[in-house]
């Protein structure tokens, strides 16, 4: 089975570049150049240099002893939360800014939901001295004030988007409109494995550093270069795509993607795209998405601002359809419980996104000797308000019961 992109930009029936003619030349330029650039010696050297010395890679693979005892299996955490800017997002932005430079672009645009990708983009633009414009839904601008300030401190212009529902999907539309209007000097630095071909392939290749490191780190830890399970959360799906990348053809590795179910499947308040969505076109790509019977794209919901995207990367849609990746989901409450469990067992405050991956640990049957890698894609600083609210709502004056 072919799991990677084909010559026409498709993963099976998913993917492609469903873009208006006004974007054709830009997308074509990227399609024709991205592989040549990222496979060149000079790019690889520079990419590696910044990953190591700027982002702090390789990120540790950490054996979570107490969590392992709790679940009766061998759990390893891939610590993407320890990267510069606090998540895996920086892997992608470093890579794409180096591509933008090689294409001679001088102005960078990006979309952001919770602000993590926006901060990671503003960061590398400051690093390279390039102009940076970040589109962010007006509602998100209000909800994520600290990240808006971070971006502005780093020199980015943050433009609140007032169209549509004023959230991530509208910010993405607005970034695409900007690109249509500024085709010559501007590079669109997309934040996930979504959008028209070649973005899904491009971003998964840049994020594949995660599984590249797992190969030698697992060899070191367990004397075998592959695990039995890799569990990652998915919104658009970039940390999942990157951590699955080098294991797609190794069928001894079970790949698990965990979607955000929000208030629960069937409640209408969910971001579980694969579970509840249907095929369609979003942001230039054919994939599975949340839409109504008339083909209008609907607004997803999750407590985690990084997972509430109404679509999913086309490769992940294909991996789900072929059965190569098993999809699980976790609700807001399950994710919160899993987050507190990690805090109390391992002394790590995770972001709400990977808390969904952690929640799946309770839903899968493992044997005692299974090697289970969970991708801890980001840290929890940005989610303090949600965690505090959760504690208050539970009127918990005493420590949280970690066995709940």
């Amino acid at each position, binding site marked *: 089975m072919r799991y990677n992109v084909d010559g026409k930009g498709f993963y099976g029936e998913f993917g492609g570049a*469903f873009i*208006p*003619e*006004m974007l054709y030349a830009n997308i074509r330029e990227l399609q024709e150049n991205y592989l040549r650039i990222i496979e060149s010696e000079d790019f690889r050297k520079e990419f590696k240099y910044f990953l190591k010395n700027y982002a702090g890679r390789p990120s540790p693979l950490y054996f979570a002893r107490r969590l392992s005892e709790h679940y009766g299996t061998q759990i390893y955490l891939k610590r993407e939360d320890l990267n510069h800017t606090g998540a895996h997002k920086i892997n992608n932005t470093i890579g794409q800014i180096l591509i933008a430079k090689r294409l001679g672009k001088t102005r960078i645009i990006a979309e952001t939901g919770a602000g993590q990708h926006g901060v990671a983009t503003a960061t590398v633009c400051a690093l390279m001295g390039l102009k940076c414009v970040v589109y962010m839904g007006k509602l998100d601008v209000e909800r994520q004030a600290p990240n808006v300030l971070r971006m502005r401190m780093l020199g980015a212009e943050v433009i609140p988007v007032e169209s*549509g529902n004023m959230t991530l999907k509208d910010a993405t539309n607005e970034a695409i*409109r900007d690109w*249509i209007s500024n085709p010559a000097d501007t590079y669109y630095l997309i934040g996930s494995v979504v959008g028209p071909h070649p973005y899904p392939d491009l971003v998964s290749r840049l994020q594949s550093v995660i599984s590249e490191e797992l190969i030698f780190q697992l060899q070191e830890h367990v004397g075998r270069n592959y695990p039995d399970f890799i569990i990652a959360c998915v919104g658009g799906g970039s940390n999942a795509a990157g951590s699955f990348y080098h294991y797609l053809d190794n069928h001894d590795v079970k790949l698990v993607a965990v979607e955000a179910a929000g208030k629960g499947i069937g409640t209408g308040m969910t971001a579980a795209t694969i579970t509840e969505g249907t095929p369609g*076109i979003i942001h230039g790509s054919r994939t599975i998405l949340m839409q109504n019977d008339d083909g209008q794209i609907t607004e997803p919901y999750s407590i985690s601002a990084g997972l509430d995207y109404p679509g999913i990367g086309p490769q992940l849609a294909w991996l789900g359809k072929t059965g190569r990746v098993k999809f699980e989901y976790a609700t807001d409450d399950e994710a919160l419980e899993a987050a507190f469990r990690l805090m109390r067992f391992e002394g790590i405050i995770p972001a709400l996104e990977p808390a969904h991956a952690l929640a799946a640990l309770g839903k899968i049957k493992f044997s005692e000797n299974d090697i289970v890698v969970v991708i801890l894609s980001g840290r929890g600083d940005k989610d303090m308000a949600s965690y505090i609210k959760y504690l208050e709502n539970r009127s918990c004056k005493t420590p949280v019961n970690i066995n709940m």
Partner: protein
Amino acid sequence: MNRIDKLFHSGKKNILSVYFTAGYPEVDSTAGIINSLVRAGVDMIEIGIPFSDPLADGPVIQKSSSNALKNGMSLRLLFHQLESIRSSVNIPLLLMGYLNPVLKFGMENFCRSCSVTGIDGIILPDLPPEIYTEQYREIFRKYGLYNILLISPSTEAERIRLIDSITDGFIYMVSSSSVTGVKQGFNDEQKAYFERVAGMNLTHPLMIGFGISSNETFAEACRYANGAIVGSAFIKMLEKEGYSDENIKKFVKDLKKE
């Protein structure tokens, strides 16, 4: 003969096509606006299918689109509203929209409904020519439906020829690197682009769209092409003045005055 071909073969110059969003300003204003436009003397009408995520459109059409959806507009309802439109309207009618609602409706179902209703052509900016020829052209042919393709200032000559060989009826020539309804007036770069394309001796007629907002820009566009398309400016008028027969007549008269 398809009504679009008939129009362009008639030798008519300065062809005016007007775009508006179905279900805007009111859910059942669609047919009334079409009839008023016909009475006002427009040559062709593009009926917009509202979509939640219109990524090639500027603020004016975005807003009309989201308002139409709030009004309860849908493709199903649109076909219902247009059921008897051909009893009063003889000019070409086109549907313009984005691919996702059409795919959800079903491409074959959509083409069949268009054919039954008397729709002559379709414009789907996010359906690339390559995918169209591979997957959908046969269905369009089966129902005698025209698919109109776009070119933009960044489309290279070789690709313009390819698009000319695939499009039906005419080529929709996007006037600038922008979304709809943003720019006003043409600069030298745009005029050079119009001249370049006009000089290519393409097999299909040209209609210029995006940024045609006044009598001046309409007249200017018609110097290089068979006609031009007005969208955002018309919707702005509907929003401000309302959709009475009189307002629409005045809008068209002002656009066309020599």
